[in-house]
């Protein structure tokens, strides 16, 4: 009896194999080329997709985001081959729109109604072409160290801290108190650049309107708050993103860190692996999103490549398996509302945040309530100037707002050479 059962199972397996192999062999072999950064996310995603679709092979080339435009521009000018898929940082998406090298994803039948509308708008050209799908919304809050919060504010409870830090002025007031209590050794924030980055993304001042760059208004909004925090002794002078600056995550001298959801994995947990249980997150005074990368398909790719590339991009965002993979390998939560249910968004690392329900905070409270200013082709230049001026403000304690704004306008003037644009 057992022998017969074994034979039957073996026969069934063989039959399935015989039937399955020709079906897979019918799928055309496709190679998708890709230039881009963040190999911690893209490489595993491609591997997983290849596992499920063995006929699709990926050839990824690591290209830092700052080099992407240069590499593509040179390839375009020389008539060289472009990759099948191009990642587009949010700061540069308006520049990509100008190239006219990307497929309109609307033509692939994508249902944009299920996505975060602000991100769809950010990737849509004036004539309605959707040039990319963002892999994730990036809601951001303010992370804090519980031990330091308890020591200086008397509580590490997120709700109580939220009430204490509901306005920008609260940060200034409490920052001065912390500086005084610690004798100037403990700060609210580790880096002026990090603070400026947060304030920039949280600012509702549009960068560009009707042929003019609103540099004065934008910088007054961002740098004015930074200078107030600096003068209160609330901000240390580390440069953001440097190894030395990142080492402060595990230190005892800085309480708060502006924190988009991806920074939880990439910065907090990575730089402070022993800090489990000692972190919490509260909302910033204004809900905001920080970062995000859209993936588009080049028009020069073959039809087979385009079809496979679209299927891959769509799989990453709108397929249950792909979205789970993105969540599990990089902590990216899809912007597809049909998948991103509260259960799906439940992060596995809440224990790292003392059991706080950061998933609901980020994806149910913050993400739906953020506004993304319309991207402009000058965002990358403005970002670069913002970084420089923020560091100047931190290095020169006497630098006032007028000087900072003037320096920002002057520096931007050297980067923006388009005479049809005015900087005000």
């Amino acid at each position, binding site marked *: 009896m057992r022998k017969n059962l074994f034979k039957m199972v073996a026969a069934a397996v063989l039959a399935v194999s015989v039937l399955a192999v020709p079906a897979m062999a019918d799928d055309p072999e496709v190679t998708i080329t890709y230039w881009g950064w963040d*190999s911690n996310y893209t490489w595993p995603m491609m591997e997983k997709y290849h596992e499920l679709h063995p006929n699709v092979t990926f*050839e990824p080339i*690591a290209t*830092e985001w700052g080099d992407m435009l240069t590499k593509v521009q040179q390839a375009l000018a020389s008539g060289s081959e472009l990759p099948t898929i191009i990642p587009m940082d949010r700061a540069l998406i308006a520049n990509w729109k100008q190239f006219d090298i990307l497929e309109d994803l609307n033509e692939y039948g994508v249902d944009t109604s299920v996505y975060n509308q602000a991100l769809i708008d950010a990737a849509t050209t004036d004539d309605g072409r959707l040039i990319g799908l963002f892999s994730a919304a990036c809601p951001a809050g303010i992370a804090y160290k519980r031990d330091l919060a308890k020591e200086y504010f008397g509580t590490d409870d997120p709700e109580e801290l939220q009430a204490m830090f509901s306005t920008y002025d609260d940060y200034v007031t409490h920052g001065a108190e912390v500086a005084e209590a610690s004798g100037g050794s403990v700060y609210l924030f580790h880096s002026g650049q990090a603070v400026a980055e947060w304030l920039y993304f949280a600012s509702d001042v549009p960068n560009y309107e009707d042929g003019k760059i609103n540099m004065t208004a934008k910088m007054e909004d961002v740098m004015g708050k930074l200078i107030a925090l600096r003068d209160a002794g609330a901000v240390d002078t580390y440069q953001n993103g440097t190894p*030395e600056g990142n080492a402060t995550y595990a230190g005892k001298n800085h309480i708060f860190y502006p924190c988009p959801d991806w920074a939880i994995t*990439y910065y907090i947990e990575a*730089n402070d692996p022993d800090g489990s249980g000692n972190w919490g997150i509260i909302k910033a005074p204004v809900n905001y999103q920080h970062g995000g990368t859209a993936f588009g398909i080049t028009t020069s790719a073959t039809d087979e490549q385009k079809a496979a590339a679209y299927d891959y991009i769509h799989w990453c965002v709108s397929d249950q398996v792909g979205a789970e993979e993105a969540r599990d390998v990089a902590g990216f939560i899809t912007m597809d509302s049909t998948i991103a249910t509260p259960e799906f968004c439940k992060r596995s690392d809440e224990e790292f945040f003392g059991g706080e329900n950061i998933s609901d905070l980020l994806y149910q409270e913050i993400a739906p309530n953020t506004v993304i200013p319309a991207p402009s082709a000058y965002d990358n230049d403005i970002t670069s100037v913002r970084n420089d001026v923020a560091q100047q403000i931190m290095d020169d304690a006497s630098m006032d707002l007028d000087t900072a704004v003037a320096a920002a306008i002057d520096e931007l003037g050297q980067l923006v050479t388009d005479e049809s644009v005015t900087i005000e």
Partner: protein
Amino acid sequence: MKIKTACKTVFLVLMSVISLIPFYLMFSMSTFKSEMIFQGNPLIPSNYFIENLKTIFASNFVRSYLNSFIISVCAMFFSVLICSMAGYAMNVYQFRLKKVMNMFIMMTMMVPTQIGIIGYMIEMRNLRINNTLLPMIFVWLASGLGAYWMISFFKTSLPLELVESARIDGANELQIYFQIALPCIRPGILTLALLQFLWSWNSYMYPLVFVNKTENYTIPIFVKSLASAFRTDYGAQLAGLTLATIPVLIIFSFGAKSMIRGLTAGAVKG
């Protein structure tokens, strides 16, 4: 006098220490586990170097290293050969449009490489070699600076009477070039070889636009990708940087004397 010498020595030692500290710290920090780099004293090496190396070797490092080595050695060898031949020809032979040629060589030095890169990419694409290492080698071969340098060196170091004597003795042109002319400009050749190696080893722009396959990665591209691949693994990043710097340091250490002799040759009128 003694005080003056002592002051000079102290100053030189101080400058050397300031220059060497970043290199030392790079090596020392590469021996730490990432989380410990800024917690311990980075001046005293730790015991995590092998682990960091394992991380690096598990990536595309060896291939990138080999590619860079092939590119740099080929660029160095052929560039020196071509430039020295140009220098020899411009000094020893009389031919029409020699002055125009000389001016052309000078002009190529004044055009920034970035301007010519698109044309160069079109050329390589039409030759169907843009997905190989060759474009990253060829770009160093016709070096205006190298040719100009060799012309100057031959002018001051190779007496034409020597060439004439060799011809009378029955030597052919290749023999004269290899056995008589080249030894006369040895410091110049070594200097140019070193510079070509360093320039091609550190070149970022050409690999950036030409590398479209993982198997063609070079060290600068690999190093840049380290920051993304090992986002917070600074120990591994620094180990990669240390290994990337080693060939340059070795070559410079061995060739520093010749290089300085080559750079300063002709500076003092004899």
